[in-house]
């Protein structure tokens, strides 16, 4: 209980100190609320069209964001695509975090071959365009939630590995780690008990920006027709559909484009706030 209070107090102090972080957290809470209520807030069935209501522009009484070529409500479609995209980004982030975290810590702890192999692997992967590799894999593995999430996770773990490696090297040279080693604490315990807590601030920053990157990657692949399966209106897929109607119905493009930009900008705001906090702590 007291621990929770201390954490809450520290959080409040951090929020007061940085208006940017406060804004980012507020935006995040707003998005989480939208995500949790995405089913309830839909005013129409996102898949069911009303052919008498085709191409209703933004601001129409019954469809406040407008409708598409089949008369489907854009607001409901934008909302129903959100959980899918957030799901893909979350799974791929967790996978990348686990893989990159473990391999990064191993590279820092075990000198010689493990370090050389892991670092070469990281550099090689990072020097190849991620989207190109993702297109190759998804073209063969097929569309769908799991193929896409796993592909993105497997391609992006080096981002975490590189940061974790650099930060772990710094932390492993600290006196408290040396003290633990002298007291014959086992290596796994040092990595998990002594190293991991120190990595948390850096990981929070990288994770935040990476989540935004994964959202963009998902929408880009869906936009290319290689991400979300047909019938799932993720924002990238909505943008793809809108291309046929850019002259008659610009709102079909403007609404999902604005949604993506708003979501990514609010996550970046949070990330910038967190990294300022991390810098201030050092």
């Amino acid at each position: 209980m007291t621990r929770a209070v201390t954490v809450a107090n520290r959080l409040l102090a951090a929020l007061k100190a940085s208006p940017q972080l406060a804004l980012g957290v507020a935006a995040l809470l707003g998005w989480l609320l939208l995500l949790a209520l995405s089913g309830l807030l839909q005013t129409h069935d996102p898949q069911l069209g009303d052919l008498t209501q085709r191409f209703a522009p933004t601001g129409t009484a019954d469809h406040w964001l407008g409708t598409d070529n089949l008369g489907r409500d854009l607001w409901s479609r934008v909302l129903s695509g959100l959980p899918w995209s957030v799901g893909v980004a979350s799974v791929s982030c967790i996978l990348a975090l686990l893989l990159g975290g473990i391999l990064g810590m191993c590279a820092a702890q075990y000198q010689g071959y493990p370090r050389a192999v892991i670092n070469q692997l990281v550099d090689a992967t990072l020097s190849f365009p991620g989207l190109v590799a993702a297109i190759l894999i998804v073209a063969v593995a097929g569309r769908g939630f799991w193929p896409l999430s796993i592909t993105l996770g497997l391609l992006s773990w080096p981002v975490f590995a590189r940061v974790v490696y650099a930060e772990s090297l710094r932390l492993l040279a600290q006196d408290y780690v040396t003290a633990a080693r002298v007291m014959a604490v086992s290596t796994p315990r040092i990595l998990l008990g002594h190293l991991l807590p120190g990595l948390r601030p850096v990981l929070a920053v990288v994770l935040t920006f990476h989540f935004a990157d994964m959202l963009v990657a998902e929408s880009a692949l869906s936009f290319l027709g290689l991400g979300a399966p047909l019938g799932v209106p993720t924002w990238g897929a909505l943008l793809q559909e809108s291309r046929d109607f850019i002259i008659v119905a610009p709102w079909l493009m403007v609404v999902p484009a604005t949604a993506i930009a708003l979501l990514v900008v609010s996550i970046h705001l949070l990330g910038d706030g967190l990294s300022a906090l991390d810098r201030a702590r050092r």
Partner: protein
Amino acid sequence: MMLAALAQRAARLLILLLGVNALLFVALGLSGDPALMLAGEDPTPELLESIRAEYGLDLPAWQRYLVQLGRMAQLDFGVSLYTGQPALFMVLEQLPATLLMAVLSMALTLCTAVPAGAWIGLRPESAARRFGAALTAVAQGIPGFVMALVLIQIFVVRLGWLPSLGYAQPAAWILPSISLGFFLAPKLCRVVSAGVAEAMQQDYIRTARANGASMRFILWREALPAALPATVALVGTQFAFLISGVVLIETLFLWPGIGLLLLHSAQSLDFPVLQALCFVVAVLVFAVNGLADALLRLMDPRLRPATQ
């Protein structure tokens, strides 16, 4: 030292190429029987046999892999499963269009982001410049392909000033280059402004100002050169990301470059072309990274090995 760094880079390229190659080989095996795909509709068993013999598909997998590796070492990637043209030739034919767009957008990025970054970084505390910095942060959050869609909507559909498609007339080069520039410009702007702002805090600049050097002199002779290495490093490390952007922008504008070729070949599972594409992309990134590295060493004496 320089040679050792180069050798390490070459080793990395080799690992990458082998990795991608193995991946594509496994993918080819998973994607079904290529002989069936080549034979067209209702193949006779004899036809399938002859195709297998012709393409070496009757050999065991490890032999096929080695044969393919051997051919790749001689830059022979085979012929496209659809056009029948040599795969590498198809890629090299599309490469100039991609390079044209990359060079144009890079020039555009440097010409806008560096001055903007310098302007913000020179006096980061003023209100107007703080607004500029916030604007860059927002721009960084907008995905490049989304920005491209918005630009098309404004300049092609609403204003009708520019064509959105076509490669023959230079007017059609404008929008793709600007759009691609958006993938890197905000990041670059932030790096330059951070570099200039940091330089302005240094003692030697304060001394120069105290001695009455003009702001222009300080910016051009002291602060910007100090921010230059970070700029070059960013361009080098972000080049792979730029290629990802190329794929999206080429698809959007139907630009006849390697990005469009990649998408089409991936959709039709044209593996020889995909192999050649990956090879060319990897070599391209390798070359640009190496160039950026060499430039960095030239600019920053601290990176050079100690000489006697």
